[in-house]
């Protein structure tokens, strides 16, 4: 999921079909949220004056449309953006109650930082990745800075790794490896 701060958003009475409510087949009214995301843009987007929601919420709630991997390379954010932090994450467990949170392990891919744990709300997960969220799933969280038309803004991308399926060749290899492991087991003496 990419979040950016460069485009005005039509808020109106503002019922956003955010990823979670869309999945649930309902539209959820977004409540004001004081969390700060991005926010370094020098040029603020123009927002309707009568909005009941803060700018920050509006900025946070703009989700890019799902994108196929073949289009990923052509996104303009890659051309002028600088990744500041890249984390490889592993989902430890998922709590889907009350909005949903995944507990994660984060391993820095830039710099030498120790491994951290934390929790990320599932609303950060893109629709097309939602079915991949399960214990053991691997994702990449990229936090970037980009300059566009003289303004600096923060962008972030959270994408899950799609793994291939087990092949017949791999299953044969596993069978051979398991046989090799078993062949090394010997019987221990037993106490009386």
């Amino acid at each position: 999921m990419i979040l950016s701060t460069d485009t005005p958003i039509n808020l109106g009475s503002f019922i956003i079909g955010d990823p979670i409510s869309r999945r649930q087949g309902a539209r959820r009214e977004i409540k004001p949220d004081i969390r700060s995301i991005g926010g370094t843009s020098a040029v603020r987007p123009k927002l309707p004056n009568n909005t009941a929601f803060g700018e920050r919420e509006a900025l946070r709630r703009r989700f890019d449309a799902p994108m196929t991997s073949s289009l990923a390379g052509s996104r303009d954010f890659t051309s002028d953006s600088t990744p500041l932090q890249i984390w490889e994450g592993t989902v430890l467990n998922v709590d889907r109650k009350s909005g949903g949170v995944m507990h994660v392990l984060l391993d820095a891919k830039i710099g030498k930082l120790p491994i951290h744990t934390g929790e990320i709300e599932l609303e950060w997960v893109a629709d097309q990745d939602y079915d991949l969220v399960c214990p053991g799933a691997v994702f990449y969280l990229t936090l970037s800075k980009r300059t566009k038309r003289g303004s600096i803004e923060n962008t972030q991308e959270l994408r899950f790794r799609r793994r291939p399926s087990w092949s017949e060749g791999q299953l044969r290899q596993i069978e051979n490896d398991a046989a090799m492991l078993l062949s090394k087991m010997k019987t221990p003496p037993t106490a009386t």
Partner: protein
Amino acid sequence: MIDYGAPPADDQIEITLFGPGYGEAIAVHLGCGAWLLVDSCIDPEFRAPASGIYLDQIGVDASQVRAIVASHWHDDHVRGISQLATKHPNAEFFLSAVFNSKEAGAFLAAFSGNSSAGLARGAKELFSAIQSREAVTPVLHKSIVLEATLSNRPVMVTALSPMPAAFAQSLAHMSQYLPRKAKPINHIPELRPNRESVVLHVNVGEDAILLGADLEEDQTSGWSAMIADNWSRGRRPATAYKVAHHGSSTGDCRQIWENLLTPDPVACLTPFSLGDLRLPTEADKHRVRTMTPHAYTTSGASRRPAMDSGQLKRLGDICKKLARVDAGFGAVRARKHFGSPSWSTELFGAARIL
């Protein structure tokens, strides 16, 4: 760098527990320079197995290690154990007998990274360790890990678990994750509850140590089942205890303290911090402290995120409750002369009184 000082005297028994906040390793001196290593974790300074670094520093030759035990396959207990298995070729290598089965073998093989990218570090470590050896020994309840006579003192290291009932439960658990054709390849989560753990009883002359691994409580396959067995209860009560499952209430029951330990034993544990699970909790610490006044932890340092404020603010916008996995590396060492009534305890690095 931690200065561990001199090695134990020939007539001293020792247990040293290492922990970086996420990980656990144990070194036990059985007397006369003979050592037992249980599990493995990484010393963050040397990025090598902590117990191996320890033995090097106190001047123990690699050939003096008699046995290496992997209590179970979880990442926090086997990091670097394949290096230990290679470094000590003369030591016999033991693991839970649960792995002496086709299903568990396939489980390890599938998630070892041999046929696809590494999917579970713990499985990879254990697979590599077994692969590097000519033979390994699976142990279960009543198995003898080591039997010797050192300076006329009988030494007997036995496995109190896994119990037979744990086999079916563990295998059923693992079977859920066995690869099937056309099913997506995923990382494997740690499987809980943990019933396949190898609990060890170390008996040297008149002294005994209980190493609780990560065994959890259960009436049919956990602590209660093990203690209900006459043979288990007949073991010499231990004066030192590596607390099971990081002090968690799920790894504890009163019968451990009443049947397998002497009053007020030396108890040491390693903390565990991963995701929303942080052990021991304050209630856990309190519970252990009520059982003994001699309780220690290898690591009690801050888990505050280790990054600059800019990085933290940026990441913290998306990821809440950020905490370091490693809360500082430390070691708890308890030594005593054979037959002596009390242990002498030393704390290194981030270790502290519980």
